[in-house]
């Protein structure tokens, strides 16, 4: 079931069109990648889901009914442009943001203490934000995004500004939150993390939705039925008309690594039979899916 449904959302700022008839379904309990080049309209889409911006037409459904101001209490938003009050103490600030999300003072304090312990930053409670480094402030900001146990989290470039150790910490947190049943919209330019984390994606380019669906499905769809075959034998593998062609074949002392292009995705068994028939020993046979990065670049440059 879709937690968030955007139906034919249009938004323009004066004469500039930011979103043109975009529809999205964000399934519950999944990580949903919202992709697109800079200025494509992602942030506008996120702001519409957050009710920061009201669309010119179209609607957003939350749990099947039109989203209301009360629903934003169930959303946690980590904007790309982070920011906290510089002169405020970390603890006061986190308390303030948690209370704005509808938490009682008591709950907010208890939950925040837990998170501060979990992230090992208990000592920062009385520090002023301006005394923190950028990465430290990011940690605090992440906590304020998730402390009220939102059922939907919108994370815009959550890893930027973190060192690899902390990025890993955040990545684990995201997966854990998903396990606990949260739905996460992840907007990022880091395609590796999309492949690793996202179940579904949507690609927005120039105000239009150009692609959406499951990540594996899409990769397969954009694949050329390429497989990687590692085999051993004295002779090189010969292509078979109507079955497959050999795109490349690297020979390392009789151990070959070849990329084959299958005429059809379901021909795997026939190809293997043919390879074995040529008297070669199969070490590994693996489907080669295109990187999300390549699909992204292809779609975005084609759109130009």
């Amino acid at each position: 079931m879709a937690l968030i449904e955007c139906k034919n959302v249009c938004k323009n700022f004066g004469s500039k069109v930011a979103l043109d008839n975009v529809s999205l379904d964000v399934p519950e309990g999944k990580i949903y990648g919202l992709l697109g080049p800079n200025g494509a309209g992602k942030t506008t889409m996120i702001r519409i889901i957050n009710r920061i911006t009201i669309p010119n037409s179209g609607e957003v459904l939350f749990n099947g009914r039109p989203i209301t101001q009360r629903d934003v209490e169930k959303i946690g938003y980590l904007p790309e442009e982070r920011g906290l009050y510089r002169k405020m103490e970390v603890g006061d600030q986190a308390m303030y943001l948690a209370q704005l999300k509808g938490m009682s003072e008591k709950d907010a304090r208890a939950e925040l203490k837990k998170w501060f312990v979990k992230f090992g930053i208990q000592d920062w409670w009385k520090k002023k934000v301006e005394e923190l480094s950028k990465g430290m402030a990011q940690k605090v900001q992440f906590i304020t995004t998730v402390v009220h146990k939102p059922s939907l989290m919108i994370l815009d470039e959550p890893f930027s500004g973190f060192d690899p150790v902390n990025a890993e910490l955040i990545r684990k947190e995201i997966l854990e939150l998903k396990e606990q049943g949260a739905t996460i919209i992840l907007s990022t330019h880091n395609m590796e993390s999309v492949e690793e984390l996202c179940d579904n994606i949507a690609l927005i380019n120039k105000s239009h939705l150009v692609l959406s669906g499951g990540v594996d499905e899409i990769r397969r769809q954009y694949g050329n039925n390429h497989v990687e075959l590692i085999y051993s034998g004295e002779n090189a593998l010969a292509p078979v008309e109507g079955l497959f062609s050999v795109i490349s074949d690297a020979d390392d002392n009789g151990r070959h690594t070849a990329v084959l292009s299958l005429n059809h995705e379901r021909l795997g068994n026939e190809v293997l039979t043919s390879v074995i028939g040529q008297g070669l020993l199969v070490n590994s046979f693996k489907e080669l899916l295109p990187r999300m990065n390549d699909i992204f670049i292809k779609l975005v440059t084609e759109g130009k």
Partner: protein
Amino acid sequence: MNLHIVNIIIKREYLTRVKKKSFIVTTFLVPILFAALCMLPSVIMLMAKEESKKVAVVDESGIVMPFLSNTETIEFQQFENADPEVLKMKLDSVGMDALLVISPLDSAKKTVSAVSYASKPLGMETSESIEHKINDAVEDYRVKSYNIEGLENIMEQVKPDISLVSYKIDEQGKETLNESGLYMILSMVLGMIIYMFISMFCGMVMSSVIEEKASRVVEVLVSSVKATELLFGKIIGVALVALTQFFMWIALTMLILAVVGGIAGPEFLSGAATADPTAQMAMMPGMDAASAPVPSEMSAILSTLGSIDYVQLIVVFVLFFVFGYLLYASMFAAIGSAVENEADSQQLVLPLTIPLMIGFLIAMFAYKSPDSAVVFWGSMIPFTSPMVMLTRVLFGVPTWQIVLSVSILVLTFVLCAWLSAKIYKVGILMFGKKSTFKDLWKWLKMK
């Protein structure tokens, strides 16, 4: 609007400011300053009295010396036949503070000239007192030179001594002594205070909006609360800071004056007295109420201060400050939402600071003719009325005018707040570009 959320915002806006060092310092320093100003005249009088001057006199005319009677602060000593040139070099060694040299009498013009020498200046009061005495001497000489029997008495009798005694009559026909000079000063002070308060706290709202935008915290905030809730929470929070400061100032000033009055005696605070003027008058040394048919200046001041309706004044002040502030604060917030740093706001706030300035200027000159058309309209037009009405109130304003002016102010505030909120909502999320009035107009029309 979710009042619970607005309350949380108000609380933060209020507490972060009230806890600031600068707030605490000004809250406690200004009353000390106020109290010091109230006590200044008494202090100066006390200090002036202590310092009496010894003046050496070389009277070459022979007519002035008899008139140079000693006073509490000046002691004259004649040095007959002394050479002024020599004497002025050794004033210290003969224990004198100053040398007064009166020239020989010019019998044609029937006058003398006078010069004084001193290492430290004589001071205004001393010089004036000496001038008076010399003038008296010359006058006496001239009167005598007419050789008319009894002329002195005649001269004494023709000299008039009239001063205008103004009474203010209220609706019940009750008369109170009234010192319009004092009203002038008070009305200027009130106009200035309300102008300072409005511009100071509106500036605070604007920088706070800019701070939230520049630090990008605003995007997280508006993902939790509505932009209008944030805007009004902020404006109300700052208003409460202003009112806290205002009432703290009044309370602390009164406390300090009461404590000092208790220690040094009430007459010490005569300049600031708000108590029963007749009681104060009786305590005034050297003021014989029975023998003075004309009220003295001091009693007029006291009576004027006593006749002011402080409750009404404070109510009107708070009313006009609150709504004047709200009107301007919402607009300052709209401007703040359009820029990312304070320097960029300079040009955009001009249309707000100009009417504020005009109101201030009208208020400063309102005392000259509190019933003129400019002042009347200034006290009705909502952009200037907070300052101008405050200055008019002292001179007496019909209640219907106050009610009308407040109503116009409130209505304008509602309208401006609505428009400002529209601009603010869009503005706070616009980054990167320097905004102009054209942009603001565009945002206003946006859905």
